[in-house]
C-alpha cells in the first residue's frame, strides 16, 4: 500500500465523517422558538403581577407549558420525518430535554399547588433547573458556550432570590435571552455554516 492510497483512504473517512456531521447538526430553532414563547409568557405574567391579577398567572403558565410542549413535539416529529441519519447525541439530547420537563412541571405547578413552597420561589428554582439542563445540553452537543449560558441561569437564580417584584421579570427575560435564545442563535449560525 503506497502513500497515495493511504491518503485517499484517510480522505474518504474524513469526508464521510464531515458529511454525517453536517446532517446531524442541531439547528437551534427549537431553542429559539421555545425561548420566544417563554419571554412572551414571562412578560404577560409580569404585567398580570403589576396589575394585581395574580390569579391569572397560573393559567398563563399552563398555556405557556402547553405551547412549548407543542413546539417541542412538532420539532421532534418533523425532524423524525425528515431524518436520514439517527445520531446518538440527538437521541440522548431529546431524552434529556424530555426528562427535564417532568421536574419542571413538579417545580412550577405541583409543589406550589401542594403548598410545599410559595409561588414566589418558582423562578428561582426554575432557573437552577434550567442551568443544569443547559449545562447537560452543552456537554451532549460538545458546545462550550452552553456552559457559560448555564452560569447565566444560576447567577439569575441568585439575583432573583435577592430581589422581588417587577425586577424579577427583567432578570428572567435577560436570562432567557442570554441563557436560552443566544445559544439557539449560535447553534443556528453553526448549522448554517456547516450546511454551506
Amino acid at each position: 500500500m503506497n502513500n497515495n492510497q493511504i491518503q485517499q483512504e484517510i480522505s474518504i473517512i474524513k469526508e464521510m465523517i464531515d458529511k454525517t456531521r453536517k446532517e446531524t447538526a442541531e439547528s437551534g430553532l427549537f431553542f429559539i422558538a421555545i425561548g420566544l414563547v417563554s419571554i412572551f409568557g414571562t412578560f404577560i405574567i409580569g404585567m398580570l403581577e403589576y396589575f394585581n391579577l395574580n390569579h391569572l398567572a397560573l393559567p398563563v403558565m399552563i398555556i405557556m407549558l402547553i405551547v412549548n410542549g407543542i413546539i417541542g413535539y412538532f420539532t421532534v416529529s418533523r425532524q423524525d420525518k425528515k431524518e436520514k441519519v439517527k445520531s446518538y447525541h440527538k437521541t440522548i439530547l431529546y431524552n434529556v430535554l424530555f426528562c427535564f420537563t417532568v421536574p419542571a412541571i413538579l417545580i412550577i405547578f405541583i409543589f406550589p399547588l401542594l403548598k410545599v413552597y410559595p409561588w414566589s420561589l418558582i423562578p428561582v428554582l426554575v432557573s437552577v433547573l434550567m442551568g443544569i439542563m443547559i449545562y447537560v445540553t452543552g456537554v451532549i452537543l460538545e458546545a462550550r458556550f452552553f456552559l457559560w449560558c448555564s452560569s447565566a441561569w444560576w447567577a439569575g437564580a441568585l439575583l432573583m432570590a435577592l430581589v422581588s417584584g417587577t425586577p424579577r421579570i427583567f432578570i428572567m427575560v435577560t436570562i432567557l435571552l442570554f441563557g436560552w435564545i443566544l445559544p439557539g442563535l449560535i447553534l443556528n449560525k453553526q448549522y448554517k455554516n456547516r450546511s454551506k
Partner: protein
Amino acid sequence: MDQKQILKLDPIIHAPTRLAILSILITVENANFTFLKESIGTSDGNLSTHLTKLETNNLIKIQKTFKGKKPQTICAITGKGRKAFTKYLEQLEQIVQMQKDKT
C-alpha cells in the same frame, strides 16, 4: 503486530465504497439508504452490493421498515463491524508510521 500483519488489511473493508459506508455508520446510530447513496455518490445497485457484502460478514445490520407509507432501508454498524473498523484504522495509522520511519 508484525509488519506482515499490519500490511494485511481487512479485504472486506479495503474497498472505497465499503470504507465510506463504515465511516458513516461508525459515527451514528443508523443511517438510511438514501443518505448513504447521496453521501458516497454511488448508484443504487452498487451500494446494495456493498451493503450486502458487509451484512453477510456481520459488519452491519440492515433493517427494512416503513416511514409512513414509504419503505426505507436502515443500516447500522454491528459490534463486530465497530471492532473491525477500529482495527482497520489502527492498521492504517501503523502503516503511516512505518512509512514515516522509512523516510
